[in-house]
């Protein structure tokens, strides 16, 4: 009996460890390739560590104006979009969490319906075009400012805040906006962090909006830029030192770009780890 349990534990540890290694490996592979000479990489066999080490791939990416432009735009979209969406979504969530809200049932049903029915891609595209959002910076921001799913998660958290806090503020003459801003939001840091990090990674990883709702020129997002690199081997090496270009290929350059684009996610990942399980608990237990 004891022996059997022991065997299971060993197998279990090995299985889970193996799965973790398989998950980790692609990242190791791409990091190795990004530091490797392009032509040398093409010969195959660069699987764990770079064989002919060079920084040329990174130098090419760093000197690419298009890359930096896309990088900057994506940072702008991520910051503006995340804070904008948190503001709008938490305002709605606060109001809907209040029993005093008039027509509360209407608001709840009006929101819920959209979780099950949608118009589809083309009618949505039609709305984007007729609003004049097509090929503007705002097409990345406006449509994403409100999400029903995030609202539900926030309002279930708001409901757990003791009623006495609000009553005390009401006695002091605070209005609803004031209560939302200076009582509910500061008390809701875990849920704001969770939803904020979801939103931020969503904005950071978005490429479809560029592809579908812009002409993709100056409004390229980072992920769209990467996709062109990966799928179409589209790399701009104009005006660079030929000896530098010699050490690269479009593939190894795209590896360097992939590594750079993944770094920001890696930096916020510890925070995601800290908050997301809480967020999921909120969503699954009360949602």
């Amino acid at each position, binding site marked *: 009996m004891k022996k059997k349990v022991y065997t299971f534990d060993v197998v279990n540890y090995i299985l*889970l460890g193996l799965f973790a290694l398989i998950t980790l490996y692609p990242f190791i592979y791409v990091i190795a390739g990004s530091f490797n000479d392009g032509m040398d990489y093409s010969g195959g066999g660069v699987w764990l560590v770079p064989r002919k080490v060079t920084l040329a791939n990174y130098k090419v990416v760093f000197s690419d104006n298009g890359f930096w432009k896309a990088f900057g735009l994506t940072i702008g979209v991520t910051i503006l979009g995340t804070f904008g969406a948190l503001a709008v979504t938490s305002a709605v969530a606060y109001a809907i969490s209040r029993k005093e809200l008039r027509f509360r049932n209407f608001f709840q049903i009006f929101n819920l319906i959209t979780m099950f029915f949608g118009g589809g*891609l083309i009618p949505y595209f039609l709305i984007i075009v007729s609003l004049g959002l097509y090929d503007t910076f705002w097409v990345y921001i406006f449509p994403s400012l409100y999400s029903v799913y995030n609202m539900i998660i926030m309002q279930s958290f708001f409901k757990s805040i003791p009623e006495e806090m609000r009553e005390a503020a009401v006695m002091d003459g605070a*209005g609803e906006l004031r209560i939302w801003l200076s009582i509910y939001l500061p008390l809701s840091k875990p849920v704001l962090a969770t939803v904020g990090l979801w939103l931020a990674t969503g904005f950071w990883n978005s490429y479809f909006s560029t592809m579908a709702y812009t002409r993709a020129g100056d409004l390229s997002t980072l992920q769209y830029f990467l996709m062109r690199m*990966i799928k179409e081997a589209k790399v701009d090496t104009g005006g660079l030192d030929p000896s530098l270009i010699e050490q690269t290929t479009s593939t190894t350059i795209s590896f360097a770009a*992939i590594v750079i684009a993944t770094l920001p996610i890696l930096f916020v990942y510890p925070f995601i780890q800290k908050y997301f399980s809480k967020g999921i608990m909120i969503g699954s237990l009360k949602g």
Partner: protein
Amino acid sequence: MDSKKIRKKWTSRDVTLLVMAGLSVVFLLIFAYAPMFGVLLAFKDGDYKLNLLGAITDAPWCGFDNFKAFLLDPNFADAIVNTICLNLIMLVINFPAPILFALLINEVRSARYKKTVQTITNFPHFISWVIFGGLVIALTDMSTGIFNPIMNALGLSSEENPVNLQGAEYFWATVIITSLIKGVGWGSIVYIAAISGLDADMYEAAELDGANRLQKAIYITLPGIAPTITVFLLLSISGMLSNSFDQFYILQNSLNLSRSEVLTTYIYKTGLSQRRYSYASALGLFNSVVSVVLLILSNFISKRATGRGIF
């Protein structure tokens, strides 16, 4: 509800709350409800129109012509077969995988090992499909990837006669495996949370009765998280036609198109690349209707069979 019968006077508080909640109405009217009316385009002859809004108001009605057109289109047949087959396979493999993973993680006693495995396996969820797909494309490359040498070593292929893992015959396997790697860790979180919420007394009682770990998993843990499983099962059945667009779009190439075209990518291509707006709207409407029907149907069956559903 009953105390509301006596209508209280409107205060500035009511107005503020109403404005705040009203924000959702504004956004949903524009970005969710208005597109619902846009589905009228599916019944119009509005393909290739430059002025989309004009297409919906001025173009002549054409009944179900667009629907007939796609039902007769061999490309649509390909897309629908791929979509349905892949989703059925994924329902059998990719749906239970996070549940199994959660059960296994739950048996790990070392908190540190547990945390490390979870930290690594959750990470890919936060990486875009552009990047993750880029990694997959690199790893499956015929001359520089790692899989061809492995397959050669196993005798599944040879240097003289290499297999192209990015070709059509390997596409489904690629999709299933990459979805597992990207999704299992994150997908297991809800189940792990549900397991941690189960009553510890039941496990103690079972131990006293001499139950082993497998028996505890089968007779306590699984029934305990059954409500969570039901909800996610119903949601994944209703989402059967809406494959992750990103994954397919990124991994698609001209060689594997016969196996990699799914409904979502087909709608994108016909609609936005080829500007067949009405045709693609009809496809989109078909997709939404089937999804809602699947949800209602599976919910009904689940309620009959287990007494549980999501509504």
